[in-house]
C-alpha cells in the first residue's frame, strides 16, 4: 500500500448559504486546488447526504466535476449519512494507496437549510430504522436523549457537564471565522439564570437547545496525493496515516450494552493500529459532537480517557484550548456547525490546519498527530482518521 498525503485544503463558511449545492462543493475544491498548487486531479469524490430530497438534485458529482472544468476525471458521490465526509476521504485514500490514482479531490456539500427546520429534522430522522424507530417519531435528538439519560444514571454525567462542552466549543468557534455560531454563551445564561429555560429550552429531554448542533449549509475539501506528488509541492507533509471504520446495529435498542458506542471504539482502534500510534500520542482531535454528550462519550470510546471518565477530564479542562488534549478547536459540530454530509471533511480540514501550524488564535502548540471521529446514524457507521505531520 502506498502512503497518502493531504496536499490541499479548502472550506466554506458553515452557515445558511444562498447559492447552489454544486457550487457549495466546488468553491472549497477551488480553494484546495489553489492551496495545493494543482490545476487537475485524477479523480473526484463528493460527499453529500441529502441532495435528492432537500435540493432535488441527484448525480451531484457529475455537476461538480463539470462546474470545476475537471472533466473527463472520474467522479462519484459518496453517501454514508453524517459520516459521508470521512467515508469519501477513505475512498480517496484507497484510490491513492492502491496506486489507481496519484491525485484525488475529496470535496463535500450539504444544503439542508433549503428546507425548513422540521423537514430537515425528518430527513435526518430517516437514518433511523424505518419500521422499528422512524414510524414512532424517533429523531436523532431523541436517540441521543435516551442515550444521555442512561449515561447520566450510570456514570454521573450531569446537565452541567453537557453545558461545559457547549460553552467550550462556542468559545473555540469565536476564534474560527468559518464557524456557524459566533455567540459567547455561559453556564449562567444557559443553565443557572432565571431565563435559562427560555434561553435554552428542552429539545428532547434531558437534551436542551444548546446541547444540539445547528443545521448548517457548507462544504469542505481536501486533496489527497501520493508521496511522489506531495514531495514536489513544498507544503508541510501531512500524512493520512490511519483510516478505520466500523458499524453497529441499525436499531439502537438492539445493542447489548446501550451505553456503549462499539462502532466508535472499533473504528478508532483500527485507525490507530494502521497509523502505529496510540490515543495518548494525539495532540488535537475533532470529535463528532452533534450532541454535547457525544463529545464526552467519544473521548472515552476512542481511548483518550477511561470509559465513564470523559466528563471528569472535561471538568479538569484537559480538552479545552491550552489543555493536554484540545478537542474540537474548530468549535465542533456544536458551534462550527454541521453540514451533515460535509462534516467529516470539515473535521479533516481543521486537523490539517492544526498540523500545519496555520490555525492562528486557536493553534495547538507543536501539534504533530491529529485525529477525527465522524459518526454516522446514531453510531451505526463510524469512520475515524489519524493524521501525522512528517516534517
Amino acid at each position, binding site marked *: 500500500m502506498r502512503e497518502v498525503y493531504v496536499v490541499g485544503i479548502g472550506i466554506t463558511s458553515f452557515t445558511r448559504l444562498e447559492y447552489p449545492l454544486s457550487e457549495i462543493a466546488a468553491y472549497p475544491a477551488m480553494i484546495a486546488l489553489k492551496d495545493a498548487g494543482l490545476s487537475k486531479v485524477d479523480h473526484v469524490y463528493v460527499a453529500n447526504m441529502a441532495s435528492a430530497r432537500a435540493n432535488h438534485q441527484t448525480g451531484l458529482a457529475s455537476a461538480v466535476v463539470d462546474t470545476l472544468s475537471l472533466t473527463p476525471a472520474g467522479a462519484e458521490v459518496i453517501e454514508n449519512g453524517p459520516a459521508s465526509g470521512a467515508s469519501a476521504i477513505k475512498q480517496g485514500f484507497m484510490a491513492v494507496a492502491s496506486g489507481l490514482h496519484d491525485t484525488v479531490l475529496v470535496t463535500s456539500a450539504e444544503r439542508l437549510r433549503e428546507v425548513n*427546520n*422540521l*423537514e430537515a*429534522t*425528518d430527513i435526518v*430522522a430517516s437514518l433511523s*430504522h424505518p*419500521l*422499528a*424507530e422512524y*414510524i*414512532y*417519531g*424517533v*429523531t436523532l*435528538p*431523541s436517540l441521543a*436523549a*435516551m*442515550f444521555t*439519560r*442512561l449515561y447520566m*444514571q450510570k456514570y454521573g454525567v450531569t446537565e452541567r457537564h453537557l453545558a461545559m462542552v457547549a460553552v467550550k466549543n462556542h468559545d473555540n468557534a469565536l476564534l474560527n471565522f468559518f464557524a456557524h455560531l459566533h455567540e459567547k454563551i455561559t453556564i449562567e445564561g444557559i443553565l443557572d439564570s432565571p431565563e435559562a429555560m427560555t434561553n435554552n*429550552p*428542552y*429539545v*428532547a*429531554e*434531558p*437534551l436542551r437547545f444548546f446541547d444540539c448542533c445547528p443545521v448548517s449549509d457548507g462544504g469542505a475539501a481536501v486533496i489527497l496525493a501520493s508521496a511522489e506528488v506531495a514531495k514536489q509541492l513544498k507544503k508541510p507533509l501531512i500524512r493520512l496515516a490511519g483510516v478505520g471504520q466500523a458499524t453497529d446495529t441499525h*436499531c*439502537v*435498542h*438492539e445493542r447489548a450494552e*446501550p451505553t456503549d458506542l462499539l462502532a466508535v471504539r472499533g473504528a478508532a482502534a483500527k485507525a490507530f493500529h494502521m497509523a502505529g500510534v496510540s490515543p495518548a500520542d494525539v495532540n488535537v482531535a475533532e470529535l463528532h459532537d452533534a450532541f454535547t454528550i457525544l463529545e464526552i462519550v467519544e473521548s472515552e470510546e476512542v481511548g483518550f480517557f477511561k470509559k465513564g471518565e470523559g466528563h471528569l477530564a472535561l471538568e479538569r479542562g484537559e480538552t479545552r484550548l491550552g489543555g493536554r488534549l484540545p478537542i474540537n478547536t474548530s468549535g465542533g459540530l456544536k458551534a462550527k456547525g454541521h453540514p451533515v454530509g460535509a462534516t467529516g471533511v470539515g473535521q479533516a480540514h481543521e486537523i490539517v490546519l492544526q498540523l500545519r501550524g496555520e490555525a492562528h488564535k486557536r493553534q495547538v502548540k507543536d501539534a504533530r498527530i491529529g485525529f477525527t471521529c465522524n459518526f454516522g446514524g446514531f453510531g451505526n457507521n463510524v469512520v475515524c482518521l489519524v493524521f501525522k505531520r512528517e516534517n
Partner: protein
Amino acid sequence: MVLEIYAYQCKKCGQLHYPFRMVCKKCGNKEPFEFDTVPLPKNGKLLTFTTVHNLPPDFNVAKLTLGIVELENGMRITGQLKAPSPKIGMAVRGKVETVREAEYSKNFGMVFYPA
C-alpha cells in the same frame, strides 16, 4: 382482531430478533426466510425515555414521549410512551395502535402505558 408486533425466530437455533433481519445474528443461518414469527410480549420495564419537542411534520402534537422497553422475555423495543411521569425501571404494558399518520400512510406500532 388483536394487532401484534412480531419477533423473528431462527428456525435453526431459536434465536429471537426484532426487528426483522435476513440472516440469523447468532448462528449465521443463511437460508432465506428461515424465521418463524412470534408475537412480542406486551409487558416489560422502561429502560430509557425522552420527551421530544421538535417533531417531524407528520406529528400534529407539541411533544411526544418515546421510550425503549425491555420486554419480559429480555427483548427490547422502541415505542411511544403514554405515562404522566415516566421513570426508568417502571413497569409498562404495550398496545398496538396508530403511531404515525400522513396523507397517504398510516403506521401501527407499540404504545406503552403504565402497567
